[in-house]
C-alpha cells in the first residue's frame, strides 16, 4: 500500500541536465531549482540520503574500501569524510568477510552500520557473514538481536568487466528469509528507500548500479521516505505488463517506446524492493493487461522472473492470456567480448521479442 506521506514519484526526465562546469556532479548537495525541487544524479541522491540520516542518527557509521579518503570508488560517498570525520567514515582493508562481520557485531551492540561493497561481486567474500549471521541473528536469538545493517554498492554488469565482476544478486539474496533486498532504478526511489533502510532494524541489501550512477532526476527538496514493498508504475499501458528491476527498468522503458510504435502499449511495473515484493501491484497490472514479461539481470534459474511467474500462477492464473515470459541474463558467466556481452544482458531487443511472444505477435 502506498504510504500517505509518500509523494507521487517525479517524472523520470529532468527539465534540464546538470552542468558539470558550474554544478556538482557528486556529493550530497543537489542543485536547488527554486520550486521545491532539486536536480541531482543517482550517486548524489544516495549520498544525500546517507548525509541526512547520518546527521539525524549519530549511531550510523560507514565502512568500506575507499569510502573515505578516495570518496568512494564510484564517488558515492563524496564529502562524507569531511562532513563526519574518520570515526564515522572508515576506510577498511580489503577484507569483506571481516568488515561485514564486524558491522554485524556493531549492529548487535548499538550501532547502525552501513557497509559499502565496492561492488556486490565482492559480497561473496562476505557471504557467510551475510547469510549465517546477518540474515538469521534476529530469529535464532528469539528476537533479542535484530541487525540494523545496510549493505550497499553497485550491482549488476559494469561496462565490459567480464565474468567475476558482473553479478546481479537480487535473486540470490532474496532467497534468504531475514534479508531485505532493495533495487532502485531512479534517484528519487534510491533516496527514499535508503532513508527507510536506515530507519528500520533488518539487514538490507541495497543494490545500486554503476551504469545508473550518473542518471539525473528532479526530486523534492523536502524530506520523504519510500516504504519497502511498494511498487511504482514507471509507465502505464493496457497490452502487456513488464515487471523490471533496477537498470532493466530503463531497458524496459526503451523497449516499450519501440513497441508503442507497433501498437503494443506496455505497462512497466518497478517493484523497487525485490523482498518484500509488491505482488499485489503486479497482479493488479496483469488483471488489466493479461500478459506479463519479467526483465531482470539475474539468471533464469531461480530468478526474480521464476518467482513472479510462480506467484502469478497462484494468484492470477485465470487472468493470464499467455505464459509469463522471462528476459534474464543468459545462463553463462559474463563474457568480455562486446557482442557476447550484448547478447547476455536482457537488453531492449530481447525484451521486445519477449513482449511480442506474450502478445502472440510474429517476432
Amino acid at each position: 500500500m502506498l504510504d500517505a506521506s509518500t509523494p507521487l514519484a517525479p517524472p523520470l526526465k529532468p527539465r534540464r541536465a546538470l552542468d558539470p562546469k558550474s554544478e556538482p556532479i557528486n556529493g550530497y548537495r543537489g542543485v536547488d531549482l527554486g520550486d521545491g525541487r532539486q536536480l541531482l544524479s543517482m550517486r548524489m541522491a544516495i549520498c544525500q540520503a546517507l548525509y541526512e540520516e547520518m546527521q539525524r542518527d549519530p549511531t550510523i557509521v560507514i565502512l568500506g574500501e575507499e569510502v573515505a579518503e578516495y570518496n568512494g570508488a564510484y564517488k558515492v560517498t563524496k564529502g562524507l569524510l569531511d562532513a563526519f570525520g574518520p570515526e564515522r567514515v572508515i576506510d577498511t582493508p580489503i577484507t569483506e568477510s571481516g568488515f561485514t562481520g564486524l558491522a554485524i557485531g556493531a549492529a548487535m551492540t548499538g550501532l547502525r552500520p552501513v557497509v559499502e561493497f565496492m561492488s556486490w561481486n565482492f559480497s561473496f567474500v562476505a557471504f557467510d557473514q551475510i547469510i549465517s549471521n546477518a540474515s538469521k541473528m534476529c530469529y535464532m536469538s528469539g528476537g533479542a538481536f535484530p541487525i540494523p545493517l545496510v549493505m550497499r554498492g553497485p550491482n549488476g554488469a559494469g561496462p565490459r568487466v567480464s565474468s567475476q565482476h558482473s553479478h546481479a544478486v537480487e535473486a540470490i539474496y532474496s532467497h534468504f528469509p531475514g534479508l531485505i533486498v532493495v533495487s532502485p532504478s531512479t534517484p528519487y526511489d534510491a533516496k527514499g528507500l535508503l532513508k527507510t533502510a536506515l530507519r528500520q532494524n533488518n539487514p538490507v541489501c541495497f543494490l545500486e548500479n554503476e551504469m545508473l550512477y550518473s542518471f539525473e532526476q528532479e526530486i523534492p527538496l523536502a524530506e520523504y521516505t519510500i516504504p519497502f514493498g511498494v511498487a511504482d508504475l514507471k509507465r502505464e499501458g493496457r497490452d502487456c505488463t513488464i515487471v523490471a528491476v533496477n537498470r532493466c527498468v530503463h531497458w524496459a522503458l526503451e523497449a516499450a517506446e519501440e513497441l508503442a510504435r507497433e501498437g503494443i502499449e506496455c505497462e512497466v511495473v518497478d517493484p523497487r524492493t525485490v523482498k518484500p515484493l509488491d505482488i499485489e501491484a503486479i497482479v493488479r497490472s496483469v488483471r488489466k493487461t493479461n500478459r506479463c514479461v519479467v526483465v531482470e539481470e539475474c539468471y533464469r534459474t531461480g530468478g526474480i522472473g521464476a518467482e513472479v511467474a510462480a506467484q502469478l500462477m497462484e494468484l492470477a492464473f485465470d487472468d493470464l492470456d499467455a505464459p509469463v515470459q522471462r528476459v534474464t541474463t543468459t545462463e553463462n558467466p559474463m563474457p568480455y567480448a562486446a557482442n557476447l556481452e550484448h547478447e547476455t544482458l536482457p537488453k531492449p531487443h530481447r525484451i521486445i521479442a519477449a513482449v511480442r511472444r506474450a502478445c502472440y505477435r510474429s517476432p
Partner: protein
Amino acid sequence: MPAQLYEVDPIAVRDEIGKERLIELWRRMLTIRRFEERAELAYRAKKVAGFLHLYIGQEAVATGWYDHITPGVDATVTSYRCHAHAILSGVDVKELMAELYGKATGNAKGKGGSMHFFSREKLFLGGHGIVGGQIPVGTGAAFSLKYRKTGGVSLTFLGDGATPQGTFHESLNMASLWSLPAIYIIENNQYGMGTACHRANAVDSLAEAKAVGYNMKAYTFDGLDLFASWKCAQEVVAEVRRSSRPVLVEAKTYRYRGHSVSDAGLYRTKEEVERYKRLDPIARVQQALQDAGWLSEAEANAIDEEIRARMAEAADFAERSPEPPLSQLTADVYA
C-alpha cells in the same frame, strides 16, 4: 620494524647471469612494457574496454622469478594484473592482444578480457579478479604437484592489498601445515587502489612479520631491481624444490600507472611517482648491460624497434580477427 632487504652484489649477479641471458631478461621486461603501452593506446582508442590494470614499473619482479621456473612443470597464478605473468609463461602476445580486443582468436576466445589470461599448457592458472581469490588456487597447485610427485613448485603472486584477506591466511596455514612446495610473492607496489599499504596493514614488513605466524621462512627484496629479484628467486626456488616448505616473499615495488586506466591518482604525489620513475627497472638493466659493454645503445634501440614492431603486428592481428560467434555464448559453461 622494516624488513631486512635481501642483499645482492649487482656486479656479481650480473656476471652470474651472463651476457646472453641478461639481454634476454631485459628483452622480456621490455616486451611486457611495450605490450602494455600498446594495450593502453588501444584502450584510449576504445578498442579495449573494461578494466586494464597495467604492470608498468613492476616488470623486474615477475621477470626475475619466472627465469627460475619451467612454466608447465611449475605452476603460476596471479591477480587481475596478469599481463606480464602470461607473457612470461610463454603465451603468444598476439593471442593476448586479441583477448584484450575481445576477439575469437584471443587467449580465452574473447571471454575473459584483460583480467583473465590463462595457459593450461604452461600451468598459468590465471589472472583473477577477486582480491585474494587466487591464493588458495596457487596453494592447490602446490598440493597437486606434490601429490603427483612432479617436482614442480607453485608461485602465487598477490598484491599488498590482498594480504588482509582471509584466503591469504588460510592458504599460508595449510601450505605450512602440509609442507607444500608453494611460494607466495607479495608484489607490494605500496597501494591497494588508493589505499596506502600502511593504512590497510597492521605491520610494516608484510612477509617477515606475517610468515612467523605460520612457521614459514620470509624474504624481502627490492622489486625495482632485477638483480635482487633474480637472485632471491634463485635461492628461494631451489630451497623450496629441496625442502618442500612454503616461503613467503615480499617484493618492494611500485606501479607507475594508475590502479586501472581510469584513476586520477590523487592519493600520491607527482614527486613520489617521479622519484620511483628514476628507478625504472628496465632502464637500470639496460644501463648495466651498457656498462658491461654487452649491449650498445644502438643495439638496444634495434631490439626495442623489433619489439615495438611485434606489438604493432599483434595489435593488427587483434584488429583483423573476427568477433567470437554468438554460438560461443553458452559454450564452455560446462566442460
